């Protein structure tokens, strides 16, 4: 088991190197730091001195990959590639283009992100699996047919409309919860209630339909026929046999996104004013703060790869037919 995990982690290293090289190319080769400085400074204030100053303040004044003026190892380390890209491997994100400490921001903003994303994830999984099971229990009847129609209709609505609609009806017309913001302690619940409900509703359409097809696939298996032949009631077959077996693909499919929950949700956080990593990323994109976007790309890839490793491990844990090789 341990050897397996170690091998999986080692396999992740070349992928992270690839991600790193890709972001480096994207951020420093496609456009030079000079272009970025010009963009940030705007057309009016652009002078050669201002560009040099802007680059020096942010450490973009070094050569890209090889510094001829330094000696020995310093020739490789005193470069943009080392300072801005290689240091990411040590989770040293450095400072953003407007000067604040990215690591500090990430540490502080993970909690609000998680406070929104985790309930949405857990509740969403519970609600959609229940709805799918309910549909399968009534399969072939008008309940199932209309359920599928409703699912397709719901997945045809942009997530933006769920948020805008929810805010308008619940917060503006009914005045039940604040439109946006974030609080301390127990007060948080007031602010998070609507985003969580909206997040769950927004995912119902696609996920319920997807889980329903998994359940229907499972229901055609031989062991279900055996269970029915034993004389088990349909509900017992569904809840005791089908549910447990269908949960294997559902849960292992869900495991991959668990680490990414830390990154939060871009749209929901910025609409509801939650100071998480999602809104941090959005603000960085709008302010064209490339340092933050770079850090987020790397962090996101690390978390995704962790999710993949967890998925593989969870497969081997829940499904005894799969062995470690």
């Amino acid at each position, binding site marked *: 088991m341990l050897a397996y995990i170690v091998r999986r982690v080692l396999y992740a290293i*070349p*992928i992270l190197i*690839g*991600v790193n090289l*890709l*972001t480096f190319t*994207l*951020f420093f080769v*496609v*456009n030079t730091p000079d*272009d*970025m400085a*010009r*963009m940030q400074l705007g057309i009016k204030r652009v002078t050669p001195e201002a560009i040099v100053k802007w680059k020096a303040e942010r450490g973009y004044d070094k050569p890209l990959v090889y510094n001829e003026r330094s000696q020995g190892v310093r020739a490789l380390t005193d470069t943009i590639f080392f300072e801005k890209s290689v240091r990411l491997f040590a989770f040293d994100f450095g400072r953003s283009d407007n000067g604040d400490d990215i690591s500090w921001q990430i540490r502080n903003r993970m909690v609000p992100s998680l406070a929104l994303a985790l309930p949405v994830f857990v509740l969403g999984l519970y609600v959609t699996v229940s709805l799918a099971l309910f549909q399968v229990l009534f399969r072939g009847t008008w309940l199932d047919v209309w359920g599928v129609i409703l699912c*397709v*209709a719901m*997945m*045809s*609505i*942009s*997530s*933006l*409309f769920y948020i*805008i609609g929810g*805010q*308008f009806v619940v917060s*503006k017309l009914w005045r039940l919860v604040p439109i946006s913001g974030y609080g301390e302690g127990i007060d948080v619940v007031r602010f998070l209630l609507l985003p969580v409900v909206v997040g769950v509703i*927004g*995912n119902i359409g696609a996920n319920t339909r*997807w889980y329903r*097809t998994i359940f229907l696939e499972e229901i055609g298996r031989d062991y279900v026929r055996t269970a029915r032949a034993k004389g088990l009631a349909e509900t017992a077959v569904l809840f005791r046999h089908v549910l447990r077996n269908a949960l294997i693909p559902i849960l292992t499919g869900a495991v991959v996104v668990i680490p*990414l929950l830390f*990154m939060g*949700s*871009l*749209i*929901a956080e910025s609409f509801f004013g939650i100071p998480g990593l999602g809104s941090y*990323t*959005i603000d960085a*994109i*709008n302010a*064209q703060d*490339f340092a933050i*976007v*770079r850090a*987020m*790309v790397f962090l*996101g*890839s690390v978390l*995704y*790869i962790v999710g*993949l490793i967890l998925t593989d491990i969870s497969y081997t844990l829940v499904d005894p037919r799969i062995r470690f090789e």
Partner: protein
Amino acid sequence: MMPVVLWTDALIGLLLAGSVALAWAGRRNRLMRDAWRRVAESRPGMAAAVVLACFVVIGLADSIHYRPRLDAPGAGVGVPAAEVVSLLDRLVAGLRSRGEKTYSAPFATHLYAKETLEGPGGRQFRDTPRLRYGGSHLKRPGARAADVVFRAVEGVAAGFALWLLLAAAVVRRLARAQACSPSAAWWRIWSGQTAVAWNAVLAAAGVVLLVAFPVAFLSGQYHVLGTDKVGQDVLLAALKSIRTALVIGTLTTLVMLPFAVVLGILAGYLGGWIDDLIQYLYTTLNSIPGVLLIAASVLMMQVLIDTHPQWFQSAAERADARLLALCAILGVTSWTGLCRLLRGETLKLRELEYVEAARAFGVPTPRILARHVLPNLMHLVMIAMVMDFSGLVLAEAVLSYVGIGVDPNTYSFGTMINAARLELSREPVVWWSLAAAFVFMFALVLSANLVADAVRDAFDPRLVGRARRRLPAG
């Protein structure tokens, strides 16, 4: 008139020609014909296809661009205007020219906000002024309701007349083909006993005509969906957004198709280190969360466009380049799903007897891939294309909201929603832009979803959900 072909126009033309050519080539293929027959049997699929076809027609009309000639006074020779317009602009020229000052509600005769007006005798008072165009033909605003109903009834009558013509044509054709009386043919259609789901087609066409004609009749005198902040008709914005949605939904797949197909087939067929390399490539790309990779690429693309203004001759060209670049970025960041699928399928195909036989006969590898492998993957490509469409349309709205979507001056559902977001906090509420974006987007995405389901079920029911790509859901 001077035709202007934007890059996206050219690619749309290419896509259209390619689809026609593929349909022509596959017309003798029995499997293909059977699959399409199953699509034609599907009632939700055919009804949705009718609605989707209407959107496509509007999008195509908006993809034929030209510079109109301005009649220079005295010279008598038309000079090409600087502005690039499309055929759709020409068709709805009325909507374009009848701009108001600012917001006005649907069917309104007065502006939405109060202004200080000057009455007779220099007396000043605050009231909502009459609109310049909306309902301006009315002598007194009180007659509006009757006028709206009258025009709507006219529209319904015209729409119904056209529908009757359409239905008659279908019945006649069916009666000829099946050698039965028209009333028998009508009964077959009505009770759903036809091979093609004509009842669904006619019902959907009826709904479309009965909505479109009254709207068209009313939009001559009123702003049916109101006007936006700068007084532009919202209906125009919604119609123009359709093209952007269609371009994003189709060209993205077209752009990424070569990558996915070539790399997927090579990895699956050749194996060895090429397989390892390609797998490494897509695992790496795949491990960057989609939205972030798109954000990073779009930011870089913006810098590139902003620092090279000399590349583009007009604003339309720059907006178009940005739209195409967005398609390319969406495509490059999301070809991995299809590539993996094609690789897996090629692995299976490689072991089949006829491929082995071809190898034994010494057929060169490129020809094996082109003659024996690729044709057997085309249905996967097509399923991926239709399944991705609706997701891409939804993704465009989210990306435009984040600020990494289309050019802010390009009409799109995302920019409409983005602009409409703040309008909801006004008093009284400005709801019509958002409602228009919602209705149009919902109709487009729902019909695309239904068509995609019908196509997928007909071509390969085993592939439920596997061809879906990872897209930012929000």
